[in-house]
């Protein structure tokens, strides 16, 4: 794995993400500044971490999506490169056109930080090969604007093409409005692009990779990615 973690002004989970990548893959990721025009040579995974890029004073992720480095990310993704966006990273990927839809304010209009349960819808992606389809994992969320929405046609396509990868669920995997903390349509927590190589998700798997700090349910995502990239190499 040769990961590049993007750093925009106001991003604040880049250290969490870098530590997790190091912990799981044993390799140090490159930290890439937003004003750079190119990804480091040999990059095989781009991670857009969480935070409040540019303070999120405009629409979340809107300014970061227009950074020089995002042009490089777009062409990397177009060639099938793996891109993971978490939280603000998901918002940035939506704003940059790499993923459809938009993240609105949480239904209750408050920031929410808590553990949620996610149903893993498919296990045949590099991002989810560490899990079984239908498996329920517990990972934290920490966001004020995670309420996913898109027009009806887009949602129908996402659902029809199996591009909803994670859904908010009850501990036993039932889709239930009581367990959908932010009101996202169809309880959508994470989606992939058409090629299946760009994943955006609101929850923070990078914060649940050690038993003593939360749990290890987030590890599967990174371990799966490491494995997939090793095979590809």
């Amino acid at each position, binding site marked *: 794995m040769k990961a590049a973690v993007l750093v925009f002004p106001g991003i604040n989970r880049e250290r*969490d993400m870098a530590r997790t990548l190091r912990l799981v893959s044993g390799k140090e990721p490159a930290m890439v500044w937003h004003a750079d025009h190119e990804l480091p040579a040999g990059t095989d995974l781009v991670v857009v971490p969480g935070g409040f890029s540019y303070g999120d004073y405009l629409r979340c992720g809107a300014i970061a999506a227009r950074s020089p480095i995002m042009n490089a990310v777009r062409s990397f993704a177009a060639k099938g490169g793996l891109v993971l966006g978490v939280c603000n990273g998901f918002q940035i990927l939506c704003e940059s056109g790499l993923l459809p839809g938009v993240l609105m304010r949480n239904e209750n209009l*408050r*920031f*929410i930080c808590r553990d949620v349960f996610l149903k893993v819808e498919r296990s045949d992606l590099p991002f989810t090969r560490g899990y079984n389809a239908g498996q329920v994992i517990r990972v934290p969320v920490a966001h004020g604007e995670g309420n996913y929405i898109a027009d009806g046609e887009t949602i129908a396509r996402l659902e029809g093409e199996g591009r909803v990868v994670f859904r908010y669920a009850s501990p036993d995997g039932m889709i239930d409005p009581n367990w959908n903390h932010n009101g996202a349509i169809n309880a959508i927590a994470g989606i992939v692009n058409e090629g299946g190589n760009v994943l955006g998700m609101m929850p923070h798997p990078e914060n649940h990779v*050690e038993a003593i700090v939360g749990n290890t349910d987030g590890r599967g995502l990174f371990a799966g990615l490491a494995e997939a990239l090793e095979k590809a190499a």
Partner: protein
Amino acid sequence: MTVTEPKITPELVAEHGLKPDEYQRILDLIGREPTLTELGIFSAMWNEHCSYKSSKVHLRGLPTSGPHVIQGPGENAGVIDIGDGQACVFKMESHNHPSYIEPYQGAATGVGGILRDVFTMGARPIACLNALSFGAPEHPKTRHLVSGVVAGIGGYGNSFGVPTVGGSVRFHNRYDGNILVNAMAVGLAEKDKIFYAAASGVGMPIVYLGSKTGRDGIHGASMASAEFDDDSDEKRPTVQVGDPFAEKLLLEACLEIMEKGCVIAIQDMGAAGLTSSATEMGAKGDLGVTLDLDKVPCREEGMTAYEMMLSESQERMLMVLKPEKEKEAEAIFRKWGLDFAIVGETTPSKRFIVRHNGQTMADLPIKELGDSAPEYKRPFISLEKLPTIDAETVPAPASIADALEHLIATPDLCSKRWVWEQYDHIIGGNTVQRPGGDAAVVRVEEGPKGLAFATDVTPRYCEANPFEGGKQAVAECWRNLTAVGATPLAITDNLNFGNPEKPEIMGQFVGCVRGIAEACKALDFPVVSGNVSLYNETNGKAILPTPSIGGVGLIADFTKSATLAFKAEGEAILLIGETTGWLGQSIYLREIAVREEGAPPPVDLVEERENGDFVRALILDSTATAVHDLSDGGLLVALAEMAMASGIGARFEAAPDDLPAHAYWFGEDQARYVVTVPEAQVEAVLARARAASVLVSRIGVTGGKTLALAGERAMAVADLSERSEGWLPGYMAGAA
């Protein structure tokens, strides 16, 4: 001097919060009439908030040194040694008045200010906590204030990127017109890379960094030094607006230039902004400072020297840089998109000179600005001690079960999940114990060390007996850190009181500070930083005396830290410490008997220490499986919390014959803990307790899904949880 400022009149002096004798002091000091800018500078430096003029003489009685202390009070924050070349930097500070006037921005900038205090010293912030006191739930403004303050704390900390891991929230009608927002920040630094405010070297460039200066917050520190009245809402323009994004950039830029060795001295611009930061750097370094205000980056056009010197615009820093590193530092700041301007230099003159538009607007003796601030020995009276309430005279509840169900759904005892879920408490990936326990535990980098944090005070005890209340606030904090297995190291104190010019309020202050000092000495728990907030009154009515204590403890291996949740069925439940059934000033007395009366529980500091050391040893050798300290609500509330945290129930022995049952279950005797241990360990633990002269009694066993007390109906743990979790969300939704 050629100055185009208005004449100084007695009215103008009074508007600056300076008393006639204080103005005379200024005249004597400088030997002429001050300019308006100078008057503003004096008012900023000599108000209560910045000068501690009423409190200083008493604060000297606090113990501030110890084997772990690297830096005590007097710098931006306190610093303690946590071993392995690492230091923990922390402080708590109030933002009470602004938070009442504009709750979101008031609370947000409170968090921003305290974070700056910590990273100014070279530390990366690793945790925030807070202590919040709101008015009665039925007061028409309370909901709005809770909502705004919590959103503001979250809004700033979440965006800045520091986990808010703990704190406390209380409600009482004595805070109706004057809420308290006390914010604490903790940072981690290398022990030999701490940065201080003292400038050194003559002719060194003084650099202004961060956001631009605007007209916001002018006279903020003076506002914090005055009482409120019905027109306080008109002070809204003096509340600053926070920009956590700018602060995050400032953090990264500051840490980067510190790492590169560019910095000689650094001071954040907090209360009294440019005035206080520049004079402190000079005074501490025995140097003069000359500022050229034409160089200050301004947000608005046409700002006067007076306005620039008093602005409290946020996210700004002042630094003395090594001249040879100036270019390197500037490049780093430009990279982060921040303003960087050389606005002055250090001089050998020991004068504080401010120039603007070719004119000298101020020329003052720099050391005397701080050192010659008035200092008062205000008269104080201590109230007569309140009688001890005999538990036998306090009516019993209809049933103990009814009383418990009621108590755990009261505003002070209910779950505060609605609050802390709005704070990102996991960012950083090091939060081992999240909010809701006795203390938060945060791993230090890759471990195995962990730091524990808690904030505590019981204001009703402090009012009933300031000395015992001061002791209790420290003891409870020490106990909370102990209950997770940490060794308490040091505290920061945030002393919130009413108008010190009233002898009875001054009496509360003096009593509490003496109590804090006594407990800190007895528990080897020195004060390394703090803040005093006086004049917390509205229309002449003072808040409850509220000396918030923020404590830091160290645990060598964070994986050994204990939590309060029951861990397994069939484990023995042990009560550590003596139970006399003390109901005076208890939550039971207030909520069930509707009386706020009597003497508060006395604090035996020797017993605190012995019992705490005993419990900590049980945690560290992995004997204790769950641990909880006893405080508000007493024994049964603590047991219910342990059950609710786990979903596991328990059966309890009946209350001892020599105590009324309600006094046994709800009394608030101090120095107590509940621990669970595996059945096989009970005898050994009891033997250890006897050897250590610690009182331990076996009071029950874990198991089932209910709390079962002899002679009472069983209470389902799930039902208790629903009650405890339900009150605050229901209230905020407007239902309660």
